[in-house]
Structures are given as C-alpha cells and as structure tokens.
C-alpha cells in the first residue's frame, strides 16, 4: 500500500483572490495572521455611477512559530485565496525569521 503524497505542510496565499476581508485573521485560533490593507476608488465607472471602493492588500503575513496548521484559515476563506501545499515550511535562525511575508511590496502598495 502506498501512502498519499503529503500535502498539508505549508499554506500559500493566492494573492489575486484575496479581498482583505479579514476573515482568516479573525478565525485563526493562534492569532498568527496579520493583514494590512487600504481602500482605493474603483476606476472606469459609468458616468453618474456612485463612487465605489475596493480593498487593496498591502501586507499578508503568517507567523509560522505560532501556526498550528489547523487549516481553519484555508477552510474559512470565502474566495479560496489560501491553499495547502506539500512543501515543508522553512526553519529559521530566529523566531522573527519565521514570520513569512506573502505579499511582495510594489510601487502600487507602498503608497
């Protein structure tokens, strides 16, 4: 009998799907998810339409020294923006090194 490939070893953010709704950060029992976001107006609306805003994700970080790999964040995300992967979370030489920043800082988000 062969064992299935290990799959629940690391959690990955699918950034385009994240709307900064904060549900994963609120449901996490270990408080290990940190999210920063800001709002921006939506462009290209029809003339006369009311102003709408959207959330822009600035920072999404998981502190792996606290995470207990329960998967509640993966289950709760309404947009399936978190997924399990089979690679092993990397060790670090300090506990600060175990905080993984999952959003690349770009021109747009560092305003």
């Amino acid at each position, binding site marked *: 009998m062969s064992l299935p490939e290990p799959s629940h070893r690391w959690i990955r953010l699918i950034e385009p799907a994240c709307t900064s709704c904060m549900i994963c950060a609120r449901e996490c029992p270990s408080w290990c998810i940190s999210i920063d976001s800001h709002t921006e107006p939506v462009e290209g609306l029809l003339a006369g339409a009311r102003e709408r805003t959207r959330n822009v994700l600035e920072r999404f970080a998981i502190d792996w020294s606290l995470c207990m790999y329960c998967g509640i964040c993966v289950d709760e995300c309404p947009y399936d923006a978190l997924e399990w992967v089979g690679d*092993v979370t990397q060790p670090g030489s300090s*506990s600060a090194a175990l905080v993984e920043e999952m959003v690349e800082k770009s021109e747009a988000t560092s305003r």
Partner: protein
Amino acid sequence: MAAISAEAANKPIIGRRFYELVDFQPMRTHRDLQEFPYNGLVSFGLDGEHYRGVMRWVDWYGDGSLYVLDVGLACCTLEFDAAAPATAGPLPGLDARAQVAIVISGTVTDRLAPAVAAVIDGCEQQAGRRPAVISFGACASSGGPYWDSYAVTKGVDQLVAVDAYVPGCPPPPEALAAVLDQLMGRVGS
C-alpha cells in the same frame, strides 16, 4: 489486564456499557522495571535538590560525528522518534570534533522551565562542549497555539539561546533531519 469475551467481541461497541466491554483490572506498575546501567549519568541541582538522570543520545550519522538529545516534552517528540535513525544510548567518550545537539520537542511550561534549563546545562557539562539548541515545533519556538496560556513559557528561547527554529505542529520528521544536516554542513546528503 483487559480481556473481551468472545460474545462481546461480536457486538457493536456504541451504546454498550463500559463493564460489558472489558474485564477491567487496575494496572500494576513497575513490576518488571529492569535495572539499567548507570553510565551516561547527568546530574544537576534544582531548587536545592540534587537530581541525576541517564541521558540518552542518538548517534545521528552512525559515525560519532553528531550526538542528538531529545528533550521530549510533548507531541513533537513522536516526530523526533520517527526522525531518529537509531536508538538512543548513553553518551560515549567524544572525539574532539564531534558535535552535540539538543532538540526541545514540545511545550515548555512555566513549572518545568527550570528543569529544562538545568537539563541543558547538565548536558553541556557532560558533553564538554556547547550543544546546538534546536527549537522543534511551534510550542518550543514561541509557545505555539498555547502562547496565551497562564502556564506556558512562550518559547524555549526565553531560557536558552536557540540556534534553529523549526516551525510545524508538529514538523514532519524530514524537517528535523534537514535542520541537522544544515547544522553539520551536510546539506544535500
């Protein structure tokens, strides 16, 4: 010990009384505890009392280059057992170049914290060199899911300097093997 009658064994368990399932007898303890040789003894003082214990180390690569001790506090110690390539034994005389590592596997509670620190000190004396300290798992790294408990030390680095933090709850055995390989400069082997 416990015995299930043939008739009981065929019935579904759910909804049955406890006393229908087993012939229960209280456990007898330590009747057959074997005497083990007292070499490899580590001794340390704690709260004015003097303790001795036999510390068992794993010769990780089988060649005496690295001896690894598990401070098995909780669930992560099972992953250490899975990762260990050999059974642990008392520490033999060490080569000058041999290294030693101590792996803290599991939750450090405030009550036990002085004992953990004392064991690490005692092992350093026994080995005659500073061990590499590996914090194995979330609890040892920061308190993990129990960081908010009234009784938990938030990471073994509150007690002792840590060389490597391995995340996971628990980390897979391969993670420990990889960290030890890195420590020894044997990456890729």
